[in-house]
């Protein structure tokens, strides 16, 4: 079958099991869009308001579904608008294929209209990238892109396709969805050594991250933790791996972690780190990190072992595979004293919980928490509201938490939530955002409305860039430089202008009504929650500090 490059792109996407793609058309992808039009019964395209939104949507789609997210953009500004989204996916190891158009081969390198070297620009923020210079290689490059995106530690791959490659024709043979390359280095897995250390430990602590979510190893994690009677703490990326209400789930650890989780993390004698990368936000001062512990690090990426933290030893491989190997050998243990110690930390944590009044973020979060089921997708933006959700929301299901961990991208939330709706098969999705973050990509409300998405948007409106303000309060003598927004934006009117609905909430009674309304409809609904601008995220370990420097109230 001789097909054009543009058609081959669409056929390859369909062949690779892509049902939904996100993007935005333009001159150098117009042929691809023409083929999307003709194939609209086989592949669904969602147009965003801005390419950044499309990239975040593809990212949210991938996180929620476990599949590869796909985003398409035109050359030049279309391509550069993807950059933040690609970097976000790179830092959080999200499988993404970004397809960009470019000027014809003959015009490359001449500063032609809407020409940018997107391959050069995205080299440091992709797992790999390509510019296609021969139509005969197009299908195989796209298949490679999918393979690379999902294999090993997942990540984004960009394929730049000049216009004449889209027009040229060649023979196309349909293929099958590519398999992940399996790179478990069995000879390096020293299961017995881990079993021995577990046997000798009195205070084991499991530190679990995004790798557990990616490899769908939540069940194995739960079993393993129960078997060895260890509490589990999480990095931001790992939070949805285990039911938040389980007693041994201590929740978030690190800079804004929960007190008991931080304390257990610091007092443990055996730290079993699974699918994490010991980011500085999670460890603080590395010299004082888990000072009494032997650290075992299990991860699929060999470069992560000993990169940020010196480990006792590392095990390289897929975490689900390794956890299953461990479950074959590890014997049940009981640690009543350690448990008692942890219960004391939990009691201390609870004693320091903020006064739970009506419009306190914790109360808002818990009210929403009571309304969800295990399919509900929770997305966040970046700032204090994100940390409160990470601390207080008890997630119920797997792949239900979409948040920007590594890049901390304000504006991620709207796109991610839209992608989450599509990736979860149109499940109820709740976005917690801030007044600042929402301002960055609120135009995506249009996308949510056009697609009738069951999206509840909760703006934790403190009128400030709260997270930066908190630092200014603590470290800059309350000099609130450019963080007091106090904008006159009416978010309810704004929602209506976009064709959605909304309510402003200043008290508990209104909160009940707004939530009831929002959850009774299946279309976008904005709840503008007015909260106190001086509410802080606590505990906090100042950057570079350790548990000794923890600020509790």
């Amino acid at each position, binding site marked *: 079958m001789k097909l054009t490059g543009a058609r081959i792109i669409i056929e390859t996407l369909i062949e690779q099991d892509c049902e939904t793609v996100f993007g935005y058309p333009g001159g150098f992808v117009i042929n691809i869009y023409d083929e999307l039009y003709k194939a609209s019964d086989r592949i669904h395209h969602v147009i965003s308001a801005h390419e950044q939104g499309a990239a975040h949507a593809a990212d949210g789609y991938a996180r929620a579904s476990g599949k590869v997210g796909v985003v398409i953009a035109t050359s030049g500004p279309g391509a550069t608008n993807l950059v933040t989204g690609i970097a976000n996916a790179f830092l959080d190891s999200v499988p993404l294929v970004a397809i960009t158009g470019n000027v014809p081969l003959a015009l490359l390198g001449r500063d032609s209209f809407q020409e940018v070297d997107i*391959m*050069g620009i995205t*080299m*440091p923020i992709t*797992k*790999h990238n390509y510019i296609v210079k021969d139509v005969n290689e197009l299908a195989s490059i796209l298949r490679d892109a999918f393979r*690379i995106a999902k294999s090993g530690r997942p990540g984004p791959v960009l394929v730049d396709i000049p216009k004449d490659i889209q027009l040229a024709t060649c023979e196309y043979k349909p293929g099958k969805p590519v398999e992940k390359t399996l790179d478990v280095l069995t000879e390096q897995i020293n299961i017995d050594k881990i079993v021995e250390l577990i046997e000798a430990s009195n205070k084991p602590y499991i530190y679990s991250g995004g790798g557990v979510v990616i490899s769908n190893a939540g069940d194995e994690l739960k079993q393993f933790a129960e078997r060895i009677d260890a509490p589990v703490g999480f990095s931001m990326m790992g939070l949805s791996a285990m039911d938040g209400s389980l007693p041994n789930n201590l929740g978030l650890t690190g800079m804004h972690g929960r007190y008991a989780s931080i304390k257990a993390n610091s007092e443990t004698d055996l730290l079993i780190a699974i699918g994490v990368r010991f980011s500085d936000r999670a460890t603080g001062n590395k010299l004082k990190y888990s000072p009494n512990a032997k650290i075992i690090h299990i991860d699929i*990426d*060999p*470069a992560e072992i*000993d*990169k940020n933290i*010196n*480990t006792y*030893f590392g095990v390289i491989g897929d975490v689900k595979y390794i956890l299953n190997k461990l479950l074959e050998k590890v014997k049940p243990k009981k640690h009543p004293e350690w448990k008692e110690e942890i219960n004391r930390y939990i009691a201390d944590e609870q004693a320091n919980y903020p006064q739970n009044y009506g419009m306190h973020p914790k109360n808002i979060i818990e009210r929403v928490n009571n309304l969800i089921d295990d399919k509900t997708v929770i997305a966040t933006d970046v700032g204090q509201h994100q940390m409160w959700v990470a601390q207080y929301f008890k997630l119920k299901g797997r792949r239900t938490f979409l948040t920007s961990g590594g890049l901390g991208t304000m504006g991620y939330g709207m796109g991610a939530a839209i992608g989450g709706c599509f990736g979860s098969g149109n499940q109820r999705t709740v976005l917690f955002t801030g007044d600042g973050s929402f301002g960055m990509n609120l135009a995506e409300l249009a996308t949510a409305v056009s697609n009738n998405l069951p999206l509840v948007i909760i703006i934790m409106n403190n009128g400030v860039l709260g997270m930066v303000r908190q630092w200014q309060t603590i470290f800059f003598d309350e000099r609130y430089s450019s963080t007091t927004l106090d904008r006159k934006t009416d978010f309810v009117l704004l929602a209506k202008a976009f064709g959605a609905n909304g309510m402003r909430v200043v008290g508990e009674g209104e909160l009940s009504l707004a939530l009831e309304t929002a959850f009774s409809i299946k279309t976008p609904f904005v709840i503008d929650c007015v909260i106190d601008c001086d509410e802080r995220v606590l505990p906090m370990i100042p950057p570079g500090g350790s548990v000794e420097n923890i600020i509790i109230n």
Partner: protein
Amino acid sequence: MDFSTKKEQFILSVLVANHFGVLTRISGLFSRRGYNIDSLNVGETENPETSRMTIIVTGDEYIKSQIVKQLGKLQEVMKVEMLPKEETVLREHLLIKINVSRETRSEITEAVNVFRGKIVDFNSDSVTVEINGEPSKLNAFIEFTKSYGIIEMCRSGALAMKRGANSL
């Protein structure tokens, strides 16, 4: 693992796909992660689909282990090996143009012979010398010529290969 923080120079041999952009990818990785390249050399191998890079880097053990692992993650890198100095043939090429006068010409010629170099061009005011060898030998020759005045010079960066019958 605990790493020694002592800095030393090490030799990396890297087999890569012969694609455009590979050099950018690798040098980008080094600069982004803050690894210092002392020298880098790249050329096609007997197989036109692969190139071989010889990279010399100074760093501590942590950097050494990270470089090998991070390079290994690049799709176009096929093989990375750290070459042990004692078992490695290391060669570099130097072209150097030196000021000469009637009085200094014979001294320089003599030195070139001692260093087993070759005079490849000369005129009444200058002489151009080519020398091959271990980087330390080249350094010694450059040191020697300084007093005469170096007009310009260029070094190739080292090529390295392990001794014995095995290949990378």
